[in-house]
C-alpha cells in the first residue's frame, strides 16, 4: 500500500530524514519508534503533506501512485489519515460540522452522495459510544478547551468516521492516563481490518502493550536502523535508545 524509498526531507534547511525506506501492506500494523529528534513526527507530516517539510530526495508511492505530488486534502480523500500529536483547536467550528464536511469531501471524491444528517448522527453516536465519548462532544468547538485525553479520543473518533486505508497515529499515547490510553487503544484495535494499514509513531513501548504491532522499526538520525517484530520494542525498552545509536554508529 505504501512504499517509501530513500526519503530525504528537511525543515527550515535542516535535514531530518536521511534516506528512509519502508514498506507497509494492507492489514499490517507498524510501530515506528525512536528517540526525540530522530524524525518520527517528520515522517508522519511528510506522508500527510505538510508544506513546511521539504522532500529533497527519494519517493513515496501510495496505492501504486506517486503520493508526493498530491495536496494534503487529496491525500486525505484518498484514505490517508494522520492522528495529530497536538490536535489543533479551531474555535467556533463545531466538531460535528468538521466531521461531516470531511466525510462529504471524501464521499464526493469517491463519487458518492453526501451523507444525510440523520445517518451521520446515527453513525457518529455509534462510534462515540464505542470510544466511550459523551455525544455532547459533537456540538463543541473542534478541540476547543478539550483536555489532552479528550483531544486524542477525538482524533480516534475522526479516524473511525473517516475509515482511512492508511492511518498514521503520531504519539497518540502521549499525555494520556492509563484509562484514556486503554480507551484509545481499544478504539484503534476495533479499526484493525485486513484492508487497513496502521502506522503507530511512538516514543514509548507502553502503547504497544495494548496495540500489538506486526512490525517494529527503530528510527535514528532520519533512517530506520533496525526492524523486527514486537520483541524489538521490548528489547528497546530494556536497553534504551543509546543502544540503538551505538548500533547505528557501530
Amino acid at each position: 500500500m505504501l512504499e517509501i524509498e530513500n526519503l530525504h526531507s528537511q525543515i527550515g534547511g535542516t535535514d531530518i530524514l536521511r534516506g528512509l525506506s519502508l514498506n507497509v501492506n494492507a492489514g499490517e500494523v507498524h510501530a515506528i519508534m525512536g528517540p526525540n529528534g530522530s524524525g518520527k513526527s517528520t515522517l508522519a507530516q511528510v506522508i500527510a503533506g505538510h508544506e513546511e517539510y521539504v522532500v529533497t530526495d527519494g519517493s513515496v508511492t501510495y496505492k501504486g501512485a506517486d503520493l508526493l505530488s498530491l495536496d494534503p486534502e487529496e491525500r486525505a480523500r484518498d484514505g490517508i489519515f494522520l492522528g495529530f500529536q497536538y490536535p489543533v483547536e479551531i474555535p467556533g467550528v463545531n466538531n460535528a460540522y468538521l466531521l461531516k464536511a470531511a466525510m462529504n469531501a471524501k464521499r464526493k471524491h469517491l463519487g458518492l452522495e453526501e451523507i444525510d444528517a440523520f445517518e451521520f448522527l446515527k453513525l457518529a453516536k455509534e462510534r462515540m459510544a464505542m470510544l466511550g465519548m459523551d455525544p455532547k462532544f459533537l456540538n463543541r468547538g473542534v478541540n476547543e478547551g478539550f483536555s489532552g485525553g479528550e483531544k486524542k479520543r477525538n482524533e480516534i473518533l475522526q479516524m473511525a468516521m473517516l475509515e482511512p486505508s492508511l492511518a498514521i497515529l503520531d504519539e497518540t499515547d502521549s499525555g494520556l492516563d492509563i484509562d484514556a490510553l486503554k480507551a484509545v487503544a481499544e478504539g484503534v484495535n476495533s479499526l484493525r481490518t485486513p484492508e487497513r494499514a496502521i502506522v503507530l509513531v511512538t516514543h514509548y513501548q507502553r502503547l504497544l502493550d495494548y496495540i500489538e504491532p506486526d512490525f517494529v522499526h527503530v528510527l535514528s538520525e532520519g533512517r530506520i536502523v533496525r526492524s523486527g517484530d514486537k520483541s524489538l520494542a521490548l528489547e528497546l525498552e530494556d536497553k534504551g535508545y543509546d543502544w540503538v545509536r551505538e548500533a547505528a554508529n557501530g
Partner: protein
Amino acid sequence: MSSENIESIVNRCYEHGFVTDIATESLPPGLNEDVIRAISARKNEPEFMLEWRLQAYQQWLEMTEPDWAHVNYPPIDFNAISYYAAPKSDEDRPKSLDEVDPKLLETYDKLGIPLHERARLAGVAVDAVFDSVSVATTFKGKLAEAGVIFCSFSEAVHDHPELVRKYLGSVVPRRDNFYAALNSAVFSDGSFVYIPKGVRCPMELSTYFRINAANTGQFERTLIIADEGSHVSYLEGCTAPMRDENQLHAAVVELVALEGAEIKYSTVQNWYPGDENGVGGIYNFVTKRGDCRGDNSKISWTQVETGSAITWKYPSCILRGANSVGEFYSVAVANNMQQADTGTKMIHIGPNTRSTIVSKGISAGRAQNAYRGLVKVLPQAHGARNHTQCDSLLIGKECGAHTFPYMEIKNPSAKVEHEATTSKISANQLFYCRQRGISEEDAVNMIVNGFCKEVFKELPMEFAVEAQALLNVSLEGAVG
C-alpha cells in the same frame, strides 16, 4: 487647466445632459437652499418638514467634515453631487434576467438567492417580477390588522405628521455630525415604522416588503418607534451585492424604544466595495442610534458588513431608561482595498443599564479594519454593566486590524469589562482541516465562520445562513 481636469468636466457635463434627458425630475448637481426647497416641493412636504431641512442645511454649512476615522479617501466635492434623482422608470430597467450582468447573477447563485428574488434585486421591471407585489400586499394587510405602521418616510410625512414631528431628530439631532446634518437637509426617502403599545409585530419587517421601496437614494432616513411594551424585529439590506452610481451614502437611522419595548435591528450591508484596486466603491457614512427612552426597554443592533469601499458607522444605544439594555453584535469584513471604521457607543445614563458588545473584524488583502467604540457610564447610572469582546482576524500580510475602544466611567458601582484579541488563521488550523480532506478555501470559510459564530447566532435564521454564504463570497481569493 490640465487635460485631466478638462476631461473630467467634459465627462461630468455629459452625465448631466444624460440625466436631464431621461427624467425632468432630477436636479442638477450642487447644494443650496433652492435645491432643498425643490426637494421638499417635489415630495409635497408640509411646511414643518421644509423648515426642518432648511435649518439642518444652515447647521451643516457651519460644520466641517470629520477626519478622525482611520480611513483615507480623496476629498468629496459636495457640489458635484446631485441631491435628488427620480426613481428609475420601468423602461430603463432590464426587462428580464437575460439583460442583467452575468457576473451579478453568478454571485446570486453563490449566495443561494431564490430565483424570483434575483429578478427584483437586479432591478428587473416590476411587472416581470413574479409575485412580490401580491406577497407584499398580503403582509401589509396583516400589519394593518395589528395596527403597525410600516411605510416609506414620504408617506409617513403625509399620513402621520404628528409622529414624524414628535420623533424625527429626537435621537440623532440635525447637527449631531456633518453627515447627519447633510442627511437631514436632503434625505430622499426611507422607512418609517410605528409599533403601537403592547403590540408584538406579527412578522419580521424587512425593506423587502415595503411598498414604493424603489430607489430610496443615497440619503436614506429611517425612523422606528416602538411604543410601550411593543416588540419589533427589523431587517435592513440584503446579502446580494448592491450597486449604485452614487458614491456617497449618508443614511440616518433613529430608533426609539419606550417603556418595556424592544427593537431588534439587523443589517446585512453589501454595497459595492470597488474593484481590487479600490476603484469605484461606495462611501458609506452612516449614523445609527437607538434611544432606550423608557425603563426596561431594549435595543439590539446586529450587523454584517461586507461591502462598501469605506464604511464609517457606529450604531449606538443611549440607555436612558432604568434597566434598559443595549446590544451590538457585529461582523465587519474588509478585503482588497476596503477600509472600515466601525463600532458602537453605549451611553449608560439610567440605573442598572446593561450593554453587550461583540465585534468581530476580519481583514484580508490590503484592507484596513478598525473597531472604534465608546462605553460611557454617567454618574447617575448606578449598577451599570458592560461587557465588550472585540476580536480581529488577519488574513494576509498587507492588511491592518485596529482597535480603539474608549471607556469613560464616572460611577463607582459600574462594572465594565473589555477584552480584545488579534490573531491570524494559523497554518496549523489549515493543515489540520486539509488533512481531514477539506479544501483550503473551505477550511478558511469554516474557520472564519467559526470566528463569527457569536454574531451570526443573533441574526434571524434565514439571514444567518445567507450571511455565512456572503462571508465566503466576500473572502474569495483572500487566501492562496
